[in-house]
Protein backbone atom coordinates (compact mmCIF):
# COMPACT_ATOMS: atom_id res chain seq x y z
CA UNK A 1 0.00 0.00 0.00
CA UNK A 2 2.81 2.33 1.01
CA UNK A 3 4.63 1.66 -2.22
CA UNK A 4 1.45 2.39 -4.17
CA UNK A 5 0.99 5.67 -2.32
CA UNK A 6 4.56 6.75 -2.90
CA UNK A 7 4.32 5.91 -6.63
CA UNK A 8 1.11 7.95 -6.83
CA UNK A 9 2.75 10.90 -5.02
CA UNK A 10 5.73 10.68 -7.35
CA UNK A 11 3.46 10.72 -10.41
CA UNK A 12 1.60 13.74 -9.04
CA UNK A 13 4.91 15.56 -8.49
CA UNK A 14 6.11 14.71 -12.00
CA UNK A 15 2.81 15.88 -13.49
CA UNK A 16 2.88 19.12 -11.47
CA UNK A 17 6.49 19.80 -12.45
CA UNK A 18 5.78 19.19 -16.15
CA UNK A 19 2.68 21.42 -16.09
CA UNK A 20 4.72 24.21 -14.52
CA UNK A 21 7.58 23.77 -16.95
CA UNK A 22 5.49 24.01 -20.10
CA UNK A 23 2.18 25.72 -20.66
CA UNK A 24 -0.59 24.24 -22.80
CA UNK A 25 -0.59 27.45 -24.82
CA UNK A 26 2.84 26.85 -26.30
CA UNK A 27 2.60 26.05 -30.00
CA UNK A 28 -0.97 27.40 -30.22
CA UNK A 29 -1.93 30.47 -32.27
CA UNK A 30 -1.84 33.51 -29.99
CA UNK A 31 -5.44 34.60 -29.25
CA UNK A 32 -6.07 37.99 -30.81
CA UNK A 33 -7.15 40.97 -28.71
CA UNK A 34 -7.46 44.74 -28.84
CA UNK A 35 -7.06 46.97 -25.80
CA UNK A 36 -6.76 50.65 -24.98
CA UNK A 37 -3.13 51.65 -24.45
CA UNK A 38 -1.38 54.16 -22.21
CA UNK A 39 -1.07 56.52 -25.21
CA UNK A 40 -4.84 56.46 -25.70
CA UNK A 41 -4.68 54.45 -28.93
CA UNK A 42 -6.27 51.03 -29.30
CA UNK A 43 -3.73 48.34 -30.10
CA UNK A 44 -4.50 44.97 -31.66
CA UNK A 45 -2.11 42.01 -31.43
CA UNK A 46 -2.78 40.78 -34.99
CA UNK A 47 -1.47 44.08 -36.36
CA UNK A 48 1.99 43.04 -35.15
CA UNK A 49 2.01 39.87 -37.28
CA UNK A 50 5.46 39.56 -38.85
CA UNK A 51 7.18 40.82 -35.71
CA UNK A 52 8.26 38.91 -32.64
CA UNK A 53 5.97 40.05 -29.83
CA UNK A 54 6.40 39.72 -26.11
CA UNK A 55 3.23 40.08 -24.02
CA UNK A 56 3.93 40.82 -20.39
CA UNK A 57 1.01 40.59 -17.96
CA UNK A 58 1.60 42.66 -14.85
CA UNK A 59 -0.08 44.42 -11.94
CA UNK A 60 0.92 47.29 -9.66
CA UNK A 61 0.69 45.09 -6.55
CA UNK A 62 3.20 42.59 -7.96
CA UNK A 63 6.78 43.09 -6.68
CA UNK A 64 8.58 40.93 -9.27
CA UNK A 65 6.76 42.84 -12.05
CA UNK A 66 8.29 46.09 -10.78
CA UNK A 67 11.70 44.40 -10.81
CA UNK A 68 11.26 42.93 -14.26
CA UNK A 69 9.75 45.83 -16.22
CA UNK A 70 12.87 48.04 -16.53
CA UNK A 71 14.80 45.00 -17.79
CA UNK A 72 12.10 44.26 -20.35
CA UNK A 73 12.20 47.90 -21.42
CA UNK A 74 15.94 47.52 -22.12
CA UNK A 75 15.19 44.53 -24.36
CA UNK A 76 12.45 46.52 -26.10
CA UNK A 77 14.64 49.55 -26.85
CA UNK A 78 17.49 47.30 -28.01
CA UNK A 79 15.55 45.04 -30.40
CA UNK A 80 12.62 47.22 -31.48
CA UNK A 81 14.33 48.28 -34.71
CA UNK A 82 14.85 44.67 -35.81
CA UNK A 83 11.23 43.58 -35.51
CA UNK A 84 10.64 43.07 -31.81
CA UNK A 85 7.63 44.48 -29.98
CA UNK A 86 6.62 44.41 -26.38
CA UNK A 87 3.07 44.85 -25.11
CA UNK A 88 2.64 45.24 -21.36
CA UNK A 89 -0.86 44.21 -20.28
CA UNK A 90 -1.90 45.66 -16.95
CA UNK A 91 -4.70 43.87 -15.12
CA UNK A 92 -5.43 46.44 -12.37
CA UNK A 93 -9.03 47.53 -11.92
CA UNK A 94 -7.92 51.17 -11.88
CA UNK A 95 -5.68 52.15 -14.78
CA UNK A 96 -4.57 55.35 -13.00
CA UNK A 97 -2.42 53.32 -10.62
CA UNK A 98 -0.78 51.61 -13.58
CA UNK A 99 -0.11 54.97 -15.26
CA UNK A 100 1.56 56.21 -12.06
CA UNK A 101 3.81 53.17 -11.93
CA UNK A 102 4.72 53.50 -15.62
CA UNK A 103 5.78 57.10 -14.93
CA UNK A 104 7.79 56.04 -11.89
CA UNK A 105 9.62 53.27 -13.75
CA UNK A 106 10.01 55.34 -16.92
CA UNK A 107 9.29 52.41 -19.24
CA UNK A 108 8.80 53.20 -22.91
CA UNK A 109 6.95 50.13 -24.23
CA UNK A 110 3.19 50.39 -24.80
CA UNK A 111 1.08 49.37 -21.83
CA UNK A 112 -2.48 48.14 -22.41
CA UNK A 113 -5.26 48.06 -19.84
CA UNK A 114 -7.19 44.87 -19.31
CA UNK A 115 -9.47 46.01 -16.50
CA UNK A 116 -12.18 43.52 -17.57
CA UNK A 117 -9.58 40.69 -17.39
CA UNK A 118 -10.77 39.30 -20.70
CA UNK A 119 -7.32 39.05 -22.25
CA UNK A 120 -5.74 37.56 -19.13
CA UNK A 121 -8.44 34.87 -19.22
CA UNK A 122 -7.64 34.17 -22.87
CA UNK A 123 -3.99 33.63 -21.93
CA UNK A 124 -4.81 31.63 -18.78
CA UNK A 125 -2.96 34.06 -16.52
CA UNK A 126 -2.98 32.60 -13.04
CA UNK A 127 0.20 34.13 -11.62
CA UNK A 128 2.00 37.46 -11.85
CA UNK A 129 3.91 38.29 -13.94
CA UNK A 130 3.31 36.09 -16.99
CA UNK A 131 5.45 36.65 -20.06
CA UNK A 132 4.43 35.21 -23.40
CA UNK A 133 6.60 35.19 -26.52
CA UNK A 134 4.83 35.13 -29.87
CA UNK A 135 6.74 34.37 -33.08
CA UNK A 136 6.47 36.12 -36.47
CA UNK A 137 3.74 33.69 -37.55
CA UNK A 138 1.58 34.62 -34.56
CA UNK A 139 2.21 31.42 -32.61
CA UNK A 140 2.88 31.26 -28.87
CA UNK A 141 6.37 29.87 -28.49
CA UNK A 142 7.31 30.43 -24.85
CA UNK A 143 5.34 31.11 -21.68
CA UNK A 144 7.05 32.13 -18.44
CA UNK A 145 5.23 32.18 -15.14
CA UNK A 146 6.65 34.50 -12.49
CA UNK A 147 10.01 36.24 -12.51
CA UNK A 148 13.34 35.55 -10.85
CA UNK A 149 16.59 37.46 -11.41
CA UNK A 150 18.30 35.86 -14.38
CA UNK A 151 15.10 35.21 -16.35
CA UNK A 152 16.02 38.17 -18.57
CA UNK A 153 18.94 36.10 -19.94
CA UNK A 154 16.46 33.42 -20.94
CA UNK A 155 14.21 36.05 -22.57
CA UNK A 156 17.20 37.47 -24.44
CA UNK A 157 18.17 34.06 -25.87
CA UNK A 158 14.60 33.30 -26.90
CA UNK A 159 14.03 36.71 -28.50
CA UNK A 160 17.26 36.45 -30.46
CA UNK A 161 16.44 32.97 -31.70
CA UNK A 162 12.88 33.98 -32.72
CA UNK A 163 14.21 37.06 -34.52
CA UNK A 164 16.59 34.85 -36.49
CA UNK A 165 13.75 32.63 -37.80
Amino acid at each position, binding site marked *: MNIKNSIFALLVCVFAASSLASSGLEGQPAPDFALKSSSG*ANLRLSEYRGDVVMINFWATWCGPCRQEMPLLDELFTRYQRVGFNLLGVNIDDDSRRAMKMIDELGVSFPVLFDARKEVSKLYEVEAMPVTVLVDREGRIRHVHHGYKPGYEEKYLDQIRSLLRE
Partner: protein
Amino acid sequence: MTKTLISLAAMAMLAISISVAAQDVAPLNADAAMAAAMSAQASESESRDQFRSLDQDVQTLKKEVLDLNRDLFLLEEELLFPANSQVAFFISMDVGEYFELDSVNIKIDGKEVANYLYTAREADALIRGGVHRVHMANLKTGDHELIAIFTGKGPHVRDYRRGATITFDKGIGAKYLELEITDRVKKQQPEFVIKEWE
Protein backbone atom coordinates in the same frame (compact mmCIF):
# COMPACT_ATOMS: atom_id res chain seq x y z
CA MET B 1 86.25 0.62 -51.31
CA THR B 2 84.40 -1.62 -53.76
CA LYS B 3 81.73 -2.16 -51.09
CA THR B 4 81.22 1.57 -50.83
CA LEU B 5 80.97 1.89 -54.62
CA ILE B 6 78.42 -0.92 -54.75
CA SER B 7 76.26 0.61 -52.00
CA LEU B 8 76.38 4.04 -53.73
CA ALA B 9 75.30 2.46 -57.02
CA ALA B 10 72.47 0.66 -55.23
CA MET B 11 71.25 3.89 -53.65
CA ALA B 12 71.34 5.65 -57.02
CA MET B 13 69.28 2.83 -58.58
CA LEU B 14 66.78 3.04 -55.74
CA ALA B 15 66.41 6.81 -56.16
CA ILE B 16 65.85 6.42 -59.91
CA SER B 17 63.22 3.69 -59.40
CA ILE B 18 61.36 5.86 -56.83
CA SER B 19 61.24 8.89 -59.17
CA VAL B 20 59.97 6.66 -62.03
CA ALA B 21 57.30 5.22 -59.76
CA ALA B 22 56.27 8.72 -58.70
CA GLN B 23 55.95 9.74 -62.36
CA ASP B 24 53.73 6.69 -62.97
CA VAL B 25 51.50 7.49 -59.96
CA ALA B 26 51.00 11.21 -60.70
CA PRO B 27 48.59 10.80 -63.66
CA LEU B 28 46.68 8.19 -61.70
CA ASN B 29 46.08 10.70 -58.83
CA ALA B 30 44.83 13.40 -61.26
CA ASP B 31 42.34 10.96 -62.78
CA ALA B 32 41.04 10.00 -59.37
CA ALA B 33 40.64 13.66 -58.34
CA MET B 34 38.75 14.43 -61.54
CA ALA B 35 36.45 11.47 -61.03
CA ALA B 36 35.85 12.51 -57.40
CA ALA B 37 35.03 16.09 -58.48
CA MET B 38 32.60 14.83 -61.11
CA SER B 39 30.83 12.53 -58.65
CA ALA B 40 30.63 15.40 -56.11
CA GLN B 41 29.10 17.63 -58.79
CA ALA B 42 26.59 14.94 -59.68
CA SER B 43 25.62 14.37 -56.05
CA GLU B 44 25.30 18.14 -55.53
CA SER B 45 22.93 18.52 -58.49
CA GLU B 46 21.01 15.47 -57.27
CA SER B 47 20.61 16.95 -53.79
CA ARG B 48 19.54 20.26 -55.37
CA ASP B 49 16.85 18.43 -57.34
CA GLN B 50 15.75 16.65 -54.21
CA PHE B 51 15.57 19.95 -52.34
CA ARG B 52 13.54 21.50 -55.17
CA SER B 53 11.04 18.65 -55.16
CA LEU B 54 10.84 18.83 -51.35
CA ASP B 55 10.13 22.55 -51.60
CA GLN B 56 7.37 21.87 -54.12
CA ASP B 57 5.90 19.24 -51.80
CA VAL B 58 5.91 21.72 -48.93
CA GLN B 59 4.19 24.36 -51.09
CA THR B 60 1.52 21.87 -52.18
CA LEU B 61 0.96 20.79 -48.60
CA LYS B 62 0.68 24.43 -47.52
CA LYS B 63 -1.94 25.11 -50.18
CA GLU B 64 -3.90 22.01 -49.15
CA VAL B 65 -3.86 23.15 -45.52
CA LEU B 66 -5.10 26.61 -46.54
CA ASP B 67 -7.90 25.09 -48.65
CA LEU B 68 -8.89 22.79 -45.80
CA ASN B 69 -8.89 25.72 -43.40
CA ARG B 70 -11.17 27.71 -45.72
CA ASP B 71 -13.58 24.79 -46.15
CA LEU B 72 -13.71 24.24 -42.39
CA PHE B 73 -14.37 27.92 -41.80
CA LEU B 74 -17.26 27.96 -44.29
CA LEU B 75 -18.68 24.74 -42.86
CA GLU B 76 -18.47 26.13 -39.35
CA GLU B 77 -20.29 29.30 -40.41
CA GLU B 78 -23.01 27.31 -42.15
CA LEU B 79 -23.51 25.15 -39.07
CA LEU B 80 -23.31 27.90 -36.48
CA PHE B 81 -25.26 30.51 -38.37
CA PRO B 82 -27.87 28.84 -40.56
CA ALA B 83 -29.11 31.19 -43.27
CA ASN B 84 -32.65 31.26 -41.86
CA SER B 85 -31.80 32.67 -38.46
CA GLN B 86 -28.67 34.59 -39.43
CA VAL B 87 -28.33 38.30 -38.63
CA ALA B 88 -25.15 40.21 -39.44
CA PHE B 89 -24.20 43.73 -38.36
CA PHE B 90 -21.82 45.86 -40.38
CA ILE B 91 -20.06 49.13 -39.59
CA SER B 92 -19.28 51.65 -42.30
CA MET B 93 -18.06 55.22 -42.28
CA ASP B 94 -18.44 58.07 -44.70
CA VAL B 95 -15.84 60.87 -44.63
CA GLY B 96 -15.27 60.77 -40.86
CA GLU B 97 -14.23 64.40 -40.54
CA TYR B 98 -16.32 65.04 -37.43
CA PHE B 99 -15.83 61.70 -35.78
CA GLU B 100 -12.82 59.58 -34.93
CA LEU B 101 -14.14 56.10 -34.14
CA ASP B 102 -12.83 54.39 -31.01
CA SER B 103 -15.32 51.63 -30.22
CA VAL B 104 -18.77 50.25 -30.95
CA ASN B 105 -20.95 48.48 -28.44
CA ILE B 106 -23.93 46.47 -29.67
CA LYS B 107 -26.89 45.32 -27.63
CA ILE B 108 -29.69 43.14 -28.96
CA ASP B 109 -32.87 43.06 -26.88
CA GLY B 110 -30.99 44.61 -23.96
CA LYS B 111 -28.16 42.06 -23.99
CA GLU B 112 -24.61 43.10 -24.89
CA VAL B 113 -23.40 40.98 -27.80
CA ALA B 114 -20.37 42.84 -29.11
CA ASN B 115 -17.88 45.41 -27.95
CA TYR B 116 -15.30 46.18 -30.60
CA LEU B 117 -12.28 48.45 -30.20
CA TYR B 118 -10.99 49.97 -33.44
CA THR B 119 -7.30 50.57 -33.94
CA ALA B 120 -6.13 53.59 -35.95
CA ARG B 121 -5.53 51.31 -38.96
CA GLU B 122 -9.00 49.80 -38.79
CA ALA B 123 -10.66 53.21 -38.45
CA ASP B 124 -8.61 54.42 -41.41
CA ALA B 125 -9.75 51.40 -43.46
CA LEU B 126 -13.38 52.33 -42.70
CA ILE B 127 -12.81 55.91 -43.82
CA ARG B 128 -11.31 54.56 -47.06
CA GLY B 129 -14.54 52.71 -47.78
CA GLY B 130 -14.08 49.47 -45.90
CA VAL B 131 -17.05 47.73 -44.27
CA HIS B 132 -16.50 45.75 -41.10
CA ARG B 133 -18.71 42.87 -40.02
CA VAL B 134 -18.76 43.58 -36.31
CA HIS B 135 -21.10 40.81 -35.21
CA MET B 136 -23.06 37.82 -36.41
CA ALA B 137 -25.92 36.22 -34.52
CA ASN B 138 -28.83 33.80 -34.71
CA LEU B 139 -32.18 35.39 -33.97
CA LYS B 140 -35.72 34.06 -33.91
CA THR B 141 -38.26 35.52 -36.32
CA GLY B 142 -40.08 38.54 -34.93
CA ASP B 143 -39.24 42.02 -33.66
CA HIS B 144 -35.89 42.76 -32.08
CA GLU B 145 -34.36 45.92 -30.69
CA LEU B 146 -30.83 46.90 -31.60
CA ILE B 147 -28.91 49.53 -29.65
CA ALA B 148 -25.51 50.62 -30.96
CA ILE B 149 -23.32 52.89 -28.87
CA PHE B 150 -20.46 54.63 -30.65
CA THR B 151 -17.57 56.19 -28.72
CA GLY B 152 -14.71 58.23 -30.09
CA LYS B 153 -13.54 61.79 -30.60
CA GLY B 154 -16.09 64.24 -31.92
CA PRO B 155 -15.68 67.76 -33.30
CA HIS B 156 -12.79 69.71 -31.69
CA VAL B 157 -11.29 66.36 -30.55
CA ARG B 158 -13.73 66.06 -27.67
CA ASP B 159 -14.79 62.71 -26.21
CA TYR B 160 -17.99 61.74 -27.94
CA ARG B 161 -20.53 59.03 -27.14
CA ARG B 162 -23.71 58.54 -29.12
CA GLY B 163 -26.29 55.84 -29.44
CA ALA B 164 -28.56 54.73 -32.24
CA THR B 165 -31.57 52.45 -31.89
CA ILE B 166 -33.68 50.51 -34.32
CA THR B 167 -36.41 47.93 -33.99
CA PHE B 168 -36.24 45.52 -36.85
CA ASP B 169 -38.35 42.64 -37.97
CA LYS B 170 -36.53 39.39 -38.46
CA GLY B 171 -38.40 37.39 -41.08
CA ILE B 172 -37.46 34.14 -42.73
CA GLY B 173 -34.04 34.33 -44.33
CA ALA B 174 -30.84 36.12 -43.43
CA LYS B 175 -30.90 39.74 -42.26
CA TYR B 176 -28.15 42.33 -42.70
CA LEU B 177 -27.99 45.63 -40.84
CA GLU B 178 -25.54 48.40 -41.55
CA LEU B 179 -24.53 50.88 -38.88
CA GLU B 180 -23.35 53.89 -40.82
CA ILE B 181 -21.43 56.87 -39.48
CA THR B 182 -21.72 59.94 -41.68
CA ASP B 183 -20.89 63.61 -41.41
CA ARG B 184 -23.70 66.13 -41.15
CA VAL B 185 -21.96 69.12 -42.68
CA LYS B 186 -24.69 71.67 -41.84
CA LYS B 187 -24.51 70.97 -38.11
CA GLN B 188 -20.82 70.02 -38.21
CA GLN B 189 -21.67 66.89 -36.27
CA PRO B 190 -21.45 63.19 -36.99
CA GLU B 191 -24.62 61.25 -37.66
CA PHE B 192 -25.31 57.61 -36.81
CA VAL B 193 -27.78 55.76 -38.98
CA ILE B 194 -28.87 52.13 -38.95
CA LYS B 195 -29.95 50.77 -42.31
CA GLU B 196 -31.46 47.43 -43.24
CA TRP B 197 -30.07 45.80 -46.34
CA GLU B 198 -32.76 44.60 -48.69
